[in-house]
């Protein structure tokens, strides 16, 4: 079980969180992009073998949606919330 750094609660067990999926690029203005671009944004989810930015919801904790970088090969959390700032 992973240990996920919550910016408010500190390192907590994965079982307190709900997985929110990889972070996609920012949502485009729906009417400003082509159908193809919109569909691509909708359906293409980052899936790298290596570090991926992803969201977790601290549902059994403080309720925060947070973002980490996790290496999909090792589960290493290579960057926690706010580390990049």
């Amino acid at each position, binding site marked *: *079980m*992973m240990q996920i750094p919550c910016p408010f609660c500190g390192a907590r067990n994965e079982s307190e969180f709900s997985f929110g999926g990889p972070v996609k690029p920012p*949502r485009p203005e729906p009417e400003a992009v082509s159908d193809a671009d919109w569909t691509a944004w909708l359906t293409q989810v980052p899936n790298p073998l290596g570090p991926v930015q992803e969201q977790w919801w601290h549902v059994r904790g403080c309720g925060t949606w947070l973002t980490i970088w996790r290496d999909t090969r*090792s589960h290493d959390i290579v960057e926690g919330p706010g580390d990049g700032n």
Partner: protein
Amino acid sequence: METKRLDRGGRIDRSRPLTFTFNGKGYSGYEGDTLASALLANDVRLTARSFKYHRPRGIVGAGVEEPSTLVELMNADASGNQPATTVTLSEGLVAKSVNCWPSPGFDIGAVNQLAARFIPAGFYYKTFKWPNWHLYEPAIRKAAGLSAAPSEPPAAGQFEARYGHCDLLIAGSGPSGLMAALTSARAGLRVIIADEGCEAGGALLSRKLTIGGAPAMDWVAEVVAELVAMPNVTHLQNATVWGYREHNYLMVTERSPDNPSLLERTWRVRACHVITATGAIERGLVFGNNDRPGVMLASAVQTYVNRYGVVPGKRPVIFTNNNSAYAVAADLVAAGITIVAIIDSRDSVPEEARALVPGVEVMAGKVVTEARGGRRLRGVVVAGKTGGSARRLSCDLLTITGGWNPTVHLWSQSRSSLRYDETLSTFLPDTPAQAVSAVGAADGALALQQALRSGAEAVARLTDTELPEIPHAPDLPYAIEPIWRVETARGKSFLDLQNDVTVDDVHLALREGYSNVEHVKRYTTGGMGIDQGKTGNINIIGTVALAQGVTIDAVGTTTFRAPYTPVSFGAIGGLREETVALPYRHTPITDWNLAQGAFMYESGARWRRPGYFPKGGEGLQEATNRECRAVRFGVGVYDGSPLGTFELKGRDVGRFLDYLYSNVMSSLKPGNGRYGLMLSDDGLIIDDGVCFRLDDHRWIVSTSTGHADAINGHMEEMLQTRFPEWNVFITAVTSQWNNATICGPKAREVMEALGTDIDLSPDAFPFMSLRDGTVAGLPVRLVRVSFTGELSYEVNVAPRHMRDLWAKVMEAGQPFGILPVGSEASHVLRVEKGFLSLGHEVDGTVDAYDLGMGWSMSKKKPDYLGKRAVHIRRETGGVRRELVGVISKSDRQIPEGAPLTPGGRKEKTEGFVTACVWSVVHDRWVGLALLEGGHSRHGETAHVRLKGGEVIPVRVTVPCHYDHDGEKLRS
């Protein structure tokens, strides 16, 4: 019966004899014995039959490595497939062998031996594949099998789970583990040390060594005494660290916790650092008939003699390729046993090894080509490594050692890498992938002094402290020349005794193209099973390397996976209440419902709700009809508390809701509400519900019961990740409000009888509005919503008032014939009205237009969740399945999900029935369906085609079967 017990010595208590039963026969042993040591003491040599060939087998090992003798424990200890070497002997223990019938001595399955040459690896899968394997599987499983699971859970005691947190978790309390524990505990670290044995000491329990000039076990006792006295140390024995997960999370199962009401306790330990002091496991040697009862690992022989005072044989031959056999030989000599000879495959034997056993014949450069005997060993054939003249030796015990493999299982589970070490001829820990160090024999430090030093060094590095003084601990240096298999062997040479995998099987796998070691494992099953090939895996790798002419390194190991040793399901599950994994949710009137004889079940999101309230001998349908009639023609009441309820506050709630819902919510006036659909970005309808505005900046969102938790997450995700700057606060208030929903033509009369300060006239308090006030003297939030199609008042109160409210409603409603209504009737009433249910009519393929709710897809709002996706999908055209009502033209209920086909013919379906109920207003079966082009087919006849070809014609209608214009619900 000849007893094989020494007069003195060992760690058994001769003053405490124990009786036990094995395969129906009574024996005795002592406190401190294992089942295996007690069997050997009683000269029981034939203890098992092998998995596939039913060959006679005996005890091979002395611990978790045991491949051969698996037993089933009976009665209170009921459990299957336990290695006899790990079963602690207790008074009255009853055990039997697992793979023979009726007994290992007379085993009917032994006939397989005659056909052995016809059943190589893969035989079953190749032969029994027509028409399919599953036809043959049960019979084969029975013949080649392990024991069945106990039919009952343990009668007494419970399993427990707990978390552990520490600076340092040490796996293993052998010399290196204890040294690491002592050093780290003295440095003030919070330490957990866990060991699979029932006593601390590891290999020292089996060996006669000294530490600091005194018996090594004295040192162990001193260290353990110091450790247990320290508040920063948790010392667990009989506790296996069996899983090493990501982020230094380890699983430890304690088999006899000090609390007598517990059977086992599983610790989930998060450790800052881990030290694997897991020791080493001896591997066997591979020659002809190397599975005969009486062929035993040298370390096991040493353990039986030194620890249990048991003589496993009076005329032993020792077969070795390394030094450790000589220490074993010395202990045998010390116990008064005469060694026939030591066969050493090395051409030159180190002098310090020979010096331990002066006078014992050492046959250097020779190998055992074959073991002789059937149910017990009679002798061995010795020859040169490449053949030459053979010599027979008579013996009753063949003590073998093929060298030592560091127990790298936990290390490897952590994804840390291994390297092949030529000097030690085995795989050693290389680069750690997590915060872990390997010490002692687990790191290749096979001699005692080295092991002690490595334990202390690891901690010194970790804590950046000076290395403490290491006590003097003399031991024979380890040296080995590997021999993966005897090439001149005669007879079956087993690599994996538990799965009956021979050298020939591995060669067959290689010939058939399974050249990767992982494929060899799966094809031959070598390395699988209870023991996971602890004694044989490296020999398999060596055999592959020899056959392929490559190095051991190039072959590599198979993946080490948890668990290291078998773990009972109970230990993984932990403490469980009743029969459900997650507790049920109840509303305050569960007791009332039960007292009324309600048939309760779960109806989404783990809520226990009344399905219906049968009276007398009523069944489901009669009770449901009665409840429906009450609502349609009189009055009924149901408990709507489980509906998800959220309060949203803040300046930006209006635009936030406009983003979440497909229709406009921000235009609502305080006190008013609106029904709406929530979509996800990809256009799926994820919920439907009503939204009320309380005042400028306070809103109530209600969701379907089953989706409340998901919608909570969805709203928080949208708010926190897309609009973090918006002023919105979301509070889940589902359990802050309960309600009694009074519905039916007489609902207003019941409300008046209850007494309220709210003007109930339809003009003052119309449909889809909300008022705060009092009802029956209780503070309420009264809402006019309707899920039944009737005039309805949802009377919301704080949970502390719910029972009181309910009692008053039943009392005030009694003159009007009020009835409690369960989920079944609610379902009927909503189907009659054509109201949606997510999971029935809304299945992820339909959109609002298909449901006839295109009005809800706002054209005015430039953007909201799902808008673009739905429009793109609709622009692609194609026939869509649309929601319609169906009225059965037969007197038969249509099963939910039944397909509609053109003309009822056996053709591609054009839709399906989503629900079908008995309508008390129409006195017939009515339903809803998703039908291709359904909106333009009202009035037509469609056809349900059931399995078996039965066709039910249905009339296609609008979805709403009752009060189409909504006069009743607005009344």
